[in-house]
């Protein structure tokens, strides 16, 4: 597979744009509904991953989506990572409306793109 711009750093802005677009399409004008939450999560993830794939970068991705009903409950989330500081990165997108909190985190880990001349 040919990647464009191999060796480029993780671009937070590009990923953020992809994810915000995905959330906006799925959760626009919705009220928290426990029956639909599953479908919303899956749709957000599907369209985010497709968008990220189309960026065509040499990265592996992990996406986590948290959807929570707004009722005053406390939520604290933290992430710890052990990776290549120069090339890997994460992007957090927070979205809310009157009844829903949505937190999407995308972790991008760079892949070594080897040249084709490696022999067995």
């Amino acid at each position, binding site marked *: 597979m040919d990647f464009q711009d191999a060796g480029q750093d993780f671009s937070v802005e590009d990923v953020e744009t992809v994810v915000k677009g995905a959330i906006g399409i799925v959760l626009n004008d919705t009220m928290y509904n426990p029956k639909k939450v599953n479908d919303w*999560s899956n749709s957000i993830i599907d369209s985010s991953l497709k968008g990220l794939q189309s960026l065509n970068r040499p990265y592996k*991705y992990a996406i*986590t989506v948290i959807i929570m009903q*707004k*009722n005053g*409950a*406390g*939520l604290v989330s933290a992430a*710890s990572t052990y990776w290549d500081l120069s090339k890997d990165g994460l992007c957090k997108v927070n979205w809310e409306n009157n009844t829903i909190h949505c937190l999407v985190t995308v972790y991008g*880990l760079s892949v070594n793109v080897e040249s084709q001349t490696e022999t067995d």
Partner: protein
Amino acid sequence: MLEQEENINLLQKELISFQPEQIDPILQTAINEVIKPVSYDESKVQQWIDTICESCMKQLVELQKPLKYIVTCTIVQSTGAGFHTTHSSYWDLENDNVVQVIWPNPNSKDENNSHMVCVLTAIGMTL
């Protein structure tokens, strides 16, 4: 000869890939040590989360596998609010993996008087 080769390949794979069976007990221990005995306390939650993440990461690195790790911990206060979390990844299907632990275990009948739910996820990806 072929069988021996296969066995060697399996051993090699175990050494370099993320094995959920190995990781699950590490995560369970980390949670039980920090938040099993306590109730939700807003001022202390940040500290608990940091401790859990740090101790998990330390033990994962000690396994000395050629993997990059991501450890995520979320603690939610139980007030009846709906809470849904999903995870999806785009990676190497053979060697990369994710382990997720939810505490308290929904199937067990432990006393659930801590008024909180903790979701701990560990992701391992090959270099």
